[in-house]
């Protein structure tokens, strides 16, 4: 999202590319943009919330990139508490995990008014329609138990479902966020 909305500065991207190269990756590891602490970069995990900022022509966004690991859930809560929109990322290979459910429950406990479930890494399951539907169904039945103030309001999920089988394009997430949010929006993004 940050990259697509052109919010990454050249020197930041160069630094991330340099680190990725130094570690022998043949790709640019964009997670290094928000994993700013030494131990996070060493272990390749997110420990604490990182705040990032980007803007679309109509709104300014604050993204709280929060850890998914169970032992850092308390840091995820810090990031989620001020959010207007929660994005829970699900790895398509693993499906809905205990942590995904836990995060959804926390977001609903904190009364975060909007929740987007993002099925990620669809390329690694060959864009399997079945896999996507399975996660979708599983989460919809689970979500009926949550108190998300506007549970019926999922216009984009419907649209995404119509073109299912396609990877969830990242700017679709931005569009959804733009539709949901007040002039200055804080989103909490939980990565698995």
């Amino acid at each position: 999202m940050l990259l697509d909305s052109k919010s990454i500065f050249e020197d930041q991207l160069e630094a991330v590319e340099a680190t990725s190269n130094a570690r022998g990756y043949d790709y640019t590891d964009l997670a290094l943009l928000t994993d700013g602490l030494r131990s996070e970069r060493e272990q390749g995990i997110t420990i604490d919330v990182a705040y990032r900022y980007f803007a679309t022509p109509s709104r300014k966004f604050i993204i709280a990139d929060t850890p998914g690991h169970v032992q850092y859930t308390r840091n995820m809560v810090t990031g989620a508490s001020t959010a207007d929109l929660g994005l829970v990322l699900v790895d398509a290979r693993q499906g809905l995990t205990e942590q995904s459910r836990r995060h959804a429950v926390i977001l609903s406990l904190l009364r975060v008014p909007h929740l987007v479930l993002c099925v990620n890494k669809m390329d690694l399951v060959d864009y399997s329609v079945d896999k996507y539907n399975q996660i979708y169904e599983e989460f919809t039945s689970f979500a009926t138990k949550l108190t998300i103030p506007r549970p019926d309001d999922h216009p984009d999920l419907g649209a995404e479902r119509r073109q299912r089988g396609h990877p969830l394009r990242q700017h679709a997430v931005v569009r959804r966020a733009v539709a949901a949010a007040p002039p200055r929006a804080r989103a909490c993004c939980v990565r698995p």
Partner: protein
Amino acid sequence: MTVHADYRLSQLDELEAESIHVFREVAAEFEKPALMFSGGKDSIVMLRLAEKAFFPAKIPFPVLQIDTGYDFPEVLACRDRWVNRLGVRLVVASVEEAMANGVVVDDGKTSRNRLQTGTLLNAIEEEGFTALFGGGRRDEEKARAKERVYSHRDEFGQWDPKNQRPELWSLYNGRIHAGEHMRIFPLSNWTELDIWHYLGQERIELPEIYFAHRRRVFERDGMLLTESDFNPLRPGETVQERTVRFRTVGDLTLTGCVESEAATIPDIIDEIAVARVTERGATWGDDRFSEAAMEDRKREGYF
């Protein structure tokens, strides 16, 4: 038909309200707060917000400045005008004095910017400050992006980034033990662009060096540094006069300027809106040494 007024705050008003809330919380909660002032645009915005938070009363805490001895004269002049207008107490801790007293050791290799850490921690201990406002913003740098608004420092002034406290909604935990202190970042959620919009909106006075001017500069490590007696030229470096401005201010020997024609705040906003390099990337010598340079300095107790 009645038209209802829109009571939603603009995003600048919302940021301002959040920061003012933080200032009042700290003033109510801590015994001895102080505002760390560098003379840069962020600390000037902090002063303005503190002024608003307590108006018409005076700001109920002193302003602490670390004098590196290499500060821009324009910045010091601007600081004095602010301090006089607001009538706040100014505490200056000098790096040179700290070196003379043996508090910090100048080995000739360490920059004045780093020596500030020891000087600052010493001043905090001497004055017994328990909370220090800093102008750090999360959009500045990746280690700062991780920091809480209330950021705990142990008795040695160190930050432990792996063990930060939960901070939910606008509830801040100000509990500290004797000898420890808290760093407070009221501008956490502001971006560089927000700061400039606010400076424009409030018509805030800034040091002249933020605006385009002619200056004798030379190039070092891809940065344009100002010519000065503190900063002797190395072989192969030549001085040229160019039209420049500073995006950040700090130690004169390390703060680079950028070539620019932007002479007013709206010009600067236009320039930043299309900038492709962060302000630190463009202008800070000290962040270039390693990928975790800022985190390491912050762990030691830097701003």
